[in-house]
């Protein structure tokens, strides 16, 4: 058995499931994942369906598309309407609904120029091919994606590309976790920490979880055994009353993270406040361009501002993103809000919580 087979081995997984049951010791615990890839992996592998009823695993604000604020969506849709602008974006954003049901997909059908790219570097190619146009890359994503975007901006500077810009909508995970825990409505007893984000930021930013809030947390990989071990570790720490930050994804995540990636990130960007959908402004949870790279800031260069926009009526994304309400309890879920008629981005993005529930959850009765 090779290592990746072992991580999917049903016998090994069943063993850990049994140990989770023991560690729960009759109590009931509420855990949360804050990574869209974990959300999908928990469903796809069937782990969700196998967990004991006493483990409630909630989905947090872990999908970068879902936490993109409606004002941010409105801003890039406004740019897309300009005849001299080409929007370069990851595909996930194409169907995200903005004010009045507008989306990039619909804008494209009406003549807006939108290029779906697989990597920010591809956006530079677009800029090179269209020297007379302004190419705006939508910089959405957490600490995982942001360094690549930062590195792309550096390449753009080195190439002297004057028609490439980024809308810096990046978000940072630790300030969001902190904001969640400061909300009295929250009662999370363990965090499954994102694997890819942690590979960049390391464990240090999570220290307050254990030290300030007394909550166990585990950096987890994405295979079934990774997920189950993380849940077991959280349950055991909870039972022992010894909360720590555990790195259980050492094959990818170094405890100190990736200092080189962070160096690039913080050469191009610096922390700033950011708007989170359903949550509002979280101080220090976003990235703004540093002085030396201001020329690449689409906001400044193209004179765009974030305008106040009303949340979509009836949408309970905020409570869903905070794990206060499972998607299936939102009154719009699977009725007014479906993948065909998404009211919020959580129903659109591949890794959105509502989309994942809609796609994978067989039994949508309360409690599931």
């Amino acid at each position, binding site marked *: 058995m090779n290592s990746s087979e072992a991580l*999917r081995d*049903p016998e090994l*997984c*069943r063993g850990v499931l049994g140990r989770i049951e023991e560690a729960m010791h009759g109590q009931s615990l509420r855990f949360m994942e804050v*990574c*869209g*890839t974990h959300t999908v992996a928990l*469903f*796809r*592998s*069937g*782990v*969700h*369906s*196998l967990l004991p009823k006493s483990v409630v695993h909630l989905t947090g604000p872990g999908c*970068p*598309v879902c936490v993109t604020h409606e004002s941010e969506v409105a801003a890039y849709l406004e740019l897309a309407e300009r005849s001299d602008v080409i929007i370069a974006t*990851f*595909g*996930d*954003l*194409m*169907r995200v609904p903005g004010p009045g049901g507008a989306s990039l997909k619909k804008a494209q059908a009406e003549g807006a120029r939108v290029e*779906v790219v*697989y990597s920010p570097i591809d956006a530079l190619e677009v800029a090179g091919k269209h020297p007379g146009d302004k190419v705006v890359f939508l910089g*959405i*994503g*957490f600490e*995982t*994606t942001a360094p690549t975007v930062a590195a792309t901006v550096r390449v753009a500077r080195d190439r002297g590309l004057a028609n490439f810009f980024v809308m810096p909508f990046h978000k940072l995970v630790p300030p969001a976790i902190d904001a969640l825990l400061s909300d009295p409505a929250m009662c999370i007893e363990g965090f499954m920490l994102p694997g*890819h984000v942690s590979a960049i930021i390391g464990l240090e930013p999570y220290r307050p979880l254990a030290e300030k809030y007394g909550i166990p947390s585990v950096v987890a990989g994405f295979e*079934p055994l990774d997920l189950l071990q993380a849940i077991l570790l959280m349950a055991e720490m909870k039972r022992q009353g010894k909360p720590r930050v555990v790195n259980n994804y050492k094959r990818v995540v170094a405890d100190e993270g990736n200092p080189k990636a962070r160096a690039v990130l913080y050469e191009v960007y610096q922390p700033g406040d950011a708007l989170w959908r359903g949550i509002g402004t979280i101080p220090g949870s976003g990235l703004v361009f540093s002085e030396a790279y201001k020329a690449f800031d689409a906001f400044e260069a193209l004179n765009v501002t974030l305008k106040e926009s009303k949340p979509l009526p009836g949408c309970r994304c905020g409570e869903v993103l905070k794990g206060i309400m499972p998607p299936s309890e939102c009154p719009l879920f699977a009725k007014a809000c479906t*993948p*065909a008629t998404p009211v919020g981005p959580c129903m659109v*993005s*591949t*890794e959105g919580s509502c989309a994942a529930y*809609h*796609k*994978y*959850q*067989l039994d949508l009765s309360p409690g599931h």
Partner: protein
Amino acid sequence: MGKKLLLDQGSGGLASHRLVADVFFRHLGNTILARMDDAALIRPKGPLAVSTDSFTVDPIFFPGGDIGSLSVHGTVNDVAMLGARPLYLTCGFILEEGFDLDDLERIVASMAMAAKKAGVKVIAGDTKVVPRGAADKIFINTTGIGEVVVSPAPSGHRARPGDVVIVSGSIGDHGLTVLSQRQGLSFEAPVHSDCASLNHLTLKLVKGLPAVHVLRDPTRGGLATTVNEIALQSGVGVTLEETTILVKPVVAAGCEILGLDPLYLANEGKIICILPEKHAAKALTIMRRDPLGREARVIGRVTAENPGKVVMRTGLGGHRLMGMLEGEQLPRIC
């Protein structure tokens, strides 16, 4: 640089005639086509299965095939899924001004080869040349006509509880090949489209096993979408076993990189066969004897529970819903 197609070659005048004679007739010619009347005359013996499909694939050449062979396989397969013997094709070409004539010839030759292998004749055709930019290089429409050889014909409405679901081989090959070519991505191992005409295999199946309830080729939307369509059409549930579904390691790895699910990627040379469990062994024997069905396997069963839904039993013994996608799969952020 080869010669480029001119608007004149779609004008209906002499230039058009030369193009038809030099390219289309040379490769696709047969006695019915050669009559050059306004319509082809055929004399069917009984009920006919008819299907039409348009092909706009980008890129037009890809490992394992091209738009020409695909336009034959795709339509032949649709006719074959009714348990019919495909006999004839018609084809309409929409060509962009400036299209490379060597490429056109390659595509038509590839169609001819695919048609010969499938045993079908091209009996009517049309060519239009549109100004540069009005079409993307080449679009092909084909219509297939076949004689129905079993009654009742296999249909998506006929899946019944107690039936098993068989698939003829690996999943996602065509979709990943085309997507990776489009994006200019290459993987450690080569990926190839599985595109092939399945009519010889389906004919053996329906002749050997009239009890076949459903035959479908999981093209756009992939295995997941097609099985969902069958569950809805038949008003039954389907439970699939994840570990029995074959996805080639290179396809699985490519999908992981791109954030795609192979179960939703197009296949162009695979069959889903649904029939009563007692006939499963014979169906597998028939399929595995054919080069296109060598890796046939049972992947699930039809249930009375969860009507209209497809449930995936995961390798761990858990389950999840396997629904339909709203639109095309989009690569993910993160």
